[in-house]
């Protein structure tokens, strides 16, 4: 159970990114986060693993207060939270397998990992996850030799070797074409259904939300505007979330 209570984030310089956002997510749920660009979706996701420090409010994960965790405890929490990014954020000069193994850094012996030494079972796990997203044959190529869709699959494999309880996906398909978008979303769906991993995924296209999400929350200007099943987003709700000028596409 992930509970977000009264989360507020004010950036240095006074930008109010999130205002008093509260919601909770059940284990195994697929939650879509929607809203315009700049509505606070990325900030919300990054507050959950504290890549961004929240200004106020609490995040409770299985009874533990994430916002009060010390730096060392935070490393332990983060390794159970996989993250997938819009621009994949792979280290382009490193090999694919190295990028995936980076997901194990929170588990392995730090001294050995600095010399690029990973236990055999971790290497096997990395190859297995690459196989699951059908790119095991690319494991020893450099990451920047792969296409966009393949790179995002490496990103998924990296998150999966963390053996995560939660996956935070920050607009995972926004830089991909519609066909690839569906294939990536299907991988996320599989992870959600087969492994029972909770997925929080910010999305732009409502049809993807309808197709994949169990539930959706909507942000506008840092405020929570909607929380419910995707099918409840009717035209009136839509205008509320995206503004009066918005037109539905897709």
């Amino acid at each position, binding site marked *: 159970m992930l509970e977000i209570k009264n989360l507020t984030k004010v950036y240095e310089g006074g930008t109010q990114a999130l205002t008093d956002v509260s919601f909770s997510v059940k284990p195994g749920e697929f939650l879509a986060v929607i809203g315009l660009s700049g509505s606070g979706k990325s900030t919300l996701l990054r507050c959950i*693993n504290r*890549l961004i420090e929240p200004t106020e409010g609490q995040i409770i994960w299985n009874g533990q207060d994430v916002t009060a965790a*010390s*730096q060392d405890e935070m*490393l*332990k*929490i*983060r*390794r*159970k*939270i*996989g*993250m997938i*990014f819009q*621009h*994949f*954020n*792979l*280290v*382009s*000069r*490193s090999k694919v397998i*190295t990028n995936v193994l*980076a*997901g*194990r*850094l*929170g*588990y392995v*012996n*730090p*001294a*050995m*990992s*600095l010399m690029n030494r990973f236990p055999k079972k971790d290497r096997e796990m990395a190859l297995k996850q690459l196989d699951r997203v059908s790119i095991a044959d690319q494991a020893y190529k450099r990451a920047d030799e792969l296409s966009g869709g393949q790179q995002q699959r490496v*990103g998924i494999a*990296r998150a999966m070797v*963390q053996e995560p309880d939660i996956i*935070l996906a920050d607009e995972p398909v926004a830089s991909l074409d519609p066909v690839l978008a569906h294939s990536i979303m299907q991988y996320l769906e599989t992870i959600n259904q087969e492994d029972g991993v909770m997925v929080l995924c910010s999305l732009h296209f409502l049809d993807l939300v309808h197709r994949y999400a169990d539930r959706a929350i909507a942000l506008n200007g840092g405020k929570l505007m909607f929380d419910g099943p995707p099918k409840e987003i009717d035209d009136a709700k839509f205008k509320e979330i995206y503004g009066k000028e918005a037109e539905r596409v897709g």
Partner: protein
Amino acid sequence: MNKKKPSLLRSLGIALGTALVIVVFAYGIKVTDVNFETTRSVDRLTQLKRVIRALAQPDIIEYDYDETVVEIPFYLPCPESQEISAPQVDKSQPYMLASAYCASPQEIVQITGKNFPPDVKGPVDLYTTSGVKKPLGDFYSDSNGEFQLDVELPTRQPIAEAQRIISTIRIQVGSAMLTETAKATWDKIIETVFMALLATAIGTVLAIPVSFIAARNLMVENKSPLTSIAFSIIGWPVGIYLGLKIASLARQLLAPFLENPVQAVLGLVIGIVLVILILQWVLKSKDKKPGFDVMDIIKLLAYAAAGLAGIAVMLFLETLSRSIGLALVEPLGPFGFIGNFLYQIGEASTLIVPAIVALGLGAVVGGSLGKIGQTISDKSSAGVVKVVNIIGTTVAGASLFAIIGAGINWLYQIDNLTKTLYWPAAIGAVIGLVLALIVKPKQTLPTGLAIYFITRTILNVTRSVESLVMAIVFVIWVGIGPFAGSLALALHTLAALAKLYSEQVESVLPGPLEAVTATGANRLQTIVYAVVPQIVSPYISFTMYRWDINVRMSTIIGFVGGGGIGFLLQQNINLLDYRAASVQMVAIAVVVALMDYVSSVVRERMV
């Protein structure tokens, strides 16, 4: 109408600006002592011609000569009592005649040579009775083996006896050979290139870790609460002091075993095995629940034991490399320098081991105390943290200022405890106390940024001192020679490269950094996995560029006694031996051009 006014103003402005520029340059010419009159002075032009001609004939190649001397007696000045007549000459040999066989100083005498070998040249000199030589000029014999030369007699103390005018006939024999100058230049240019190589290597190795500390994007996120900062400020000096003590104690304790090579080898093996075994055992044990128990104490002791064994290993290695090196110098013959290399590594580690131990223990003690401070700040109530802060920061401030006071005392030799210990400690304590009172108990402070600014400042100051100036200091420390030059260049390289490198670190893509942080990797892992792959190639290219600069710098660092070819060049310039200086200039030009070319090719390949 409206348009004209501004244009008038504009022209006035331009006129004023032009006048100002002229004044500035006029003043500049006065200050820089520009004087075109001197450029036309006949004396100077003659000298210039002589120097340029000498420079154009680098003294690279020479021949062996067969020398024959032809002499005539000569009186300078003419004796009053006796008549001087022409001497007898053997006309079957080369011989000389003079228009007069005695003369006063500064008189012109014509020397005629006959029967000389055709088309040869050589010097004509006046030899005193004591054998001192005074050059009169050079002769060139024509195709008949004759020459005529007007010579001006030098001003000398009058001598009553006959002196001698000697022509030396030089005939080349054998093939061309390199001159001594050329050989010395070759030796020195090799020395120069290796100085640059060594300096670049040392500078690069040290600059890499510094560059991470001097990178804003990596440091800005490091924030610690005051408790943690105060504790680690107390911990560092304590650790460093203990480290120095332990290192010297270990050396004393192990001294009996260090002398015998067999014992040293045994000790080395045992030490390495111990370190590996202990580390394996400690690292194997799994993550455990938070809390402190007996296991933690055992682990701590194990780490300490591994550390001590590590120190012993370093000491054994040091002695071994020294004695093996020394033993190898003779049998290796021409490759004896490899033995010397081993020996010097041993010597260097005598210097470095205490520093490593001190810094290592400083980091351990400072780091652990900092972590304890962090835990106190995280887990205790605000009131407790405040009290701990007040005590900790006061002590930290006092000790920090006491250390600074000791530094000042070392520099200025005040030797007054009140001024160098009590007062600074009191001031530091007050500052610490005030800081603890102002800062909210659990507020985090930007320690990373503070370290970043301090590092940047030190780097900028170091970089602004030219390596020529640094070399002067190093010459005093390690003596005149290439070692001093290498150290000076290395220090400058460290400062310059650390800055260039850190700017590369600052420009890495933040995305991978964020992604690796999100996996739960610690700071060091994040740097190794997200930053290092992005900076390897620019680092290599900057290093090549720096080597290029160091080769150029090391050609002149000899001017201040830093070894390399500059030493030779300056010597020859001071001796007015421009033909020799020319050889060194040519060598520098060739090496710099070559280096420039090689480094540009390598950099192109790398980027």
